[in-house]
């Protein structure tokens, strides 16, 4: 009994002291991201991309020492909020980043930016935060959620498809995806289907799809749902007759390994691709491969760019973030060599950037990857920028 009490006391003591000690002058950056659950690899890539940028300049960003605090939100909004609370209240973090999923972002971001923290999103870009609920302390270095769907829609439209079947999970990001697609696709909708979130078997939807006889399919099914869908699509023999299109989310290099042959030839919209021809990207892809032994995904590129953007702003204020206004305007003007080529923040502090459609191919090394197929947009501005008033 006494021993047990002792253990409890020690545990508590360790807990209290467990907030790690960091060097006093380093700027703390809090990263709330998803590392566990089946979507954990997304956060892992964002974190690894971000860390790569720090490691390349030996623990510094923009010449300023930084400490990266990472914690796993387990894809739960409540947990994300709790970690953000801890970063702010215990660690005194002023700059945060890392959130993968829009629902976590919607729970965490509005509160932290109100509390005076600068949040730079390396992935999630829900429409509310780009439009009505935008905030001067909120930046996004990835995209507004609709962008990649819009690019795919634009491509499908230009490629001359006239009867497209579209499907997405029955949740807000799914609705946004189909809305984004339809913003640029002008033809007929052969069918619009919302599936159960987390659904694994699409046999029923595929049967209905076949019966609708579309000339192309657009789908947004992130993570494992997408893998299941693509595999089952190929098994139903549909990939031979009806081309499949979608946003990049189901076609990153790590998912492609799980989908395999079934994905070859699929057109997908993305702001980045490993074969993008610019020096920054070549350097990044090579360095990432060397450091982690795998090809980076777009998430890794976003993590890397986010680190560079923060670095540029830190450099401009000489690592002094006591004046948040100065840091904020430095970030807004941040100039850095983005791995995706052109990059600047628009009026709502979301990227103004080129967006491409990529095609899935089998690489020379036998692994599946994407190559740029066509540029869909140049200096694209998201649809919500005009709604944003500070």
């Amino acid at each position, binding site marked *: 009994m006494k021993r047990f009490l002792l253990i409890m006391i020690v545990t508590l003591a360790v807990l209290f002291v467990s907030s790690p000690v960091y060097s006093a002058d380093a700027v703390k950056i809090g990263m709330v991201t998803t*590392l*566990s*659950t*089946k979507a*954990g*690899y997304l956060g*892992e890539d964002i974190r690894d991309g971000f860390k790569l940028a720090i490691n390349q300049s030996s623990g510094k960003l923009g010449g300023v020492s930084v400490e990266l605090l990472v914690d796993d939100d387990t894809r739960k909004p409540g947990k994300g909020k709790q970690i953000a609370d801890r970063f702010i209240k215990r660690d005194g973090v002023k700059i945060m980043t890392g959130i993968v999923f829009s629902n976590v972002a919607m729970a965490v971001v509005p509160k932290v930016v109100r509390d005076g923290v600068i949040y730079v999103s390396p992935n999630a870009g829900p429409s509310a935060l780009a439009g009505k609920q935008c905030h001067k302390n909120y930046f996004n270095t990835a995209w507004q959620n609709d962008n990649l769907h819009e690019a795919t829609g634009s491509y499908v439209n230009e490629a001359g498809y006239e009867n497209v079947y579209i499907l997405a999970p*029955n949740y807000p990001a799914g609705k946004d995806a189909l809305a984004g697609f339809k913003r640029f696709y002008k033809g007929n909708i052969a069918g*619009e*289907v*919302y*599936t*159960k979130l*987390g659904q*694994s*078997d699409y*046999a*029923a*939807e595929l*049967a*209905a799809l*076949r*019966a609708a006889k579309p000339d192309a399919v657009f789908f947004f099914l992130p*993570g*494992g*749902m997408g*893998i*299941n869908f693509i*595999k*089952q699509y190929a*098994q*139903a*023999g549909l990939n031979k007759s009806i081309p499949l299109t979608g946003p990049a989310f189901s076609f990153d290099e*790590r*998912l492609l*390994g*799980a*989908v*395999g*042959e079934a994905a070859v030839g699929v057109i997908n919209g993305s702001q980045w691709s490993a074969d993008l021809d610019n020096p920054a990207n070549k350097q990044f892809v090579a360095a990432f491969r060397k450091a982690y032994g795998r090809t980076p995904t777009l998430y890794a590129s976003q993590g890397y760019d986010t680190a560079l953007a923060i670095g540029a702003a830190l450099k401009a204020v000489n690592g002094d973030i006591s004046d948040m206004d100065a840091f904020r305007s430095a970030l807004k003007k941040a100039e850095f060599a983005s791995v995706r080529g052109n990059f600047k923040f628009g009026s709502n502090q979301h990227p103004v950037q080129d967006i491409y459609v990529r095609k899935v191919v089998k690489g020379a090394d036998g692994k599946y990857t994407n190559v740029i197929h066509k540029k869909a947009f140049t200096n694209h501005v998201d649809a919500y920028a005009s709604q944003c008033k500070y």
Partner: protein
Amino acid sequence: MLLFIEQLFNGLQLGVMLFLMSAGLTLVFGIMRVINLAHGSLYMMGAYIAATVVQHSGSFILALLTALAATALLGMLIEVIVLRRLYKRDHLDQVLATFGLILFFNELTRIVWGRQPLFMDVPGWLSETIEIIPGAPYPSYRLAIISVGILAAVFLYLMFTRTRLGMKIRAGAANREMVAALGVNITLLNTLIFGLGALLAALAGAMAGPILAVESGMGESILILTFVVIVIGGIGSIRGAFIGAILVGIVETLGKFALPLLLRLMLPPASADGTGASLASMSVYILMAAVLIWRPRGLFPAHD
């Protein structure tokens, strides 16, 4: 009409999958009176092992056999190490310990296989489609799943009605004390039944591998549907599990297909689709509630 028949096949395919899952679980419930939440983890492990073997050997059959054997062993190991200690305990302890197993196995796959889902291809000789009914090509792999499921059901039926071991198990499910009276080594029998349940779960998992993403946590969604099946079918009854599984499979599949269509007659398309999808995701639970009101012990309770 063509579409309807095709959807029936899809429902049947989900149904036999659920049957493979619930047959083992319902026996474990019935005989050992143990609630095992980690049954989904065995399904997941089956899929992971099969996917790994396919990647290294390229042979689907070999992968299937390895997954069955390895998972059955794993199941027996779990029984010996953890579950055996829980038979006499409260159901609550069983829930928590097996919940702990779920957490452990989910994290284990992440540590061993990494975070991204694993790839498992359909074997070449099953990758084509077959026109079961003219005009509706159907993936031959899904037909293979249906056949395997039905074969398993027939096998179980013969085993329980024709073999001594099977009859003992069935007697045990109906009346636990009876098995002791028959002079059976209960400890061994329990381990074997658990192994059989694990084997069936692995069969479901390995067969699902080529259609679904093999990923951490894949067992939980099917686990809950399995529970619904068992509640509907009645605990401890293989026949109940079969009928319940097919029923749930068909309701789940047809609901997704038919409910939005039905609602479109009354509502504008956008809200009809949304409401239909929501109702469809709740339909099996509504079915379960209805069965419960009618027969609280399920359709075919094995014992009273």
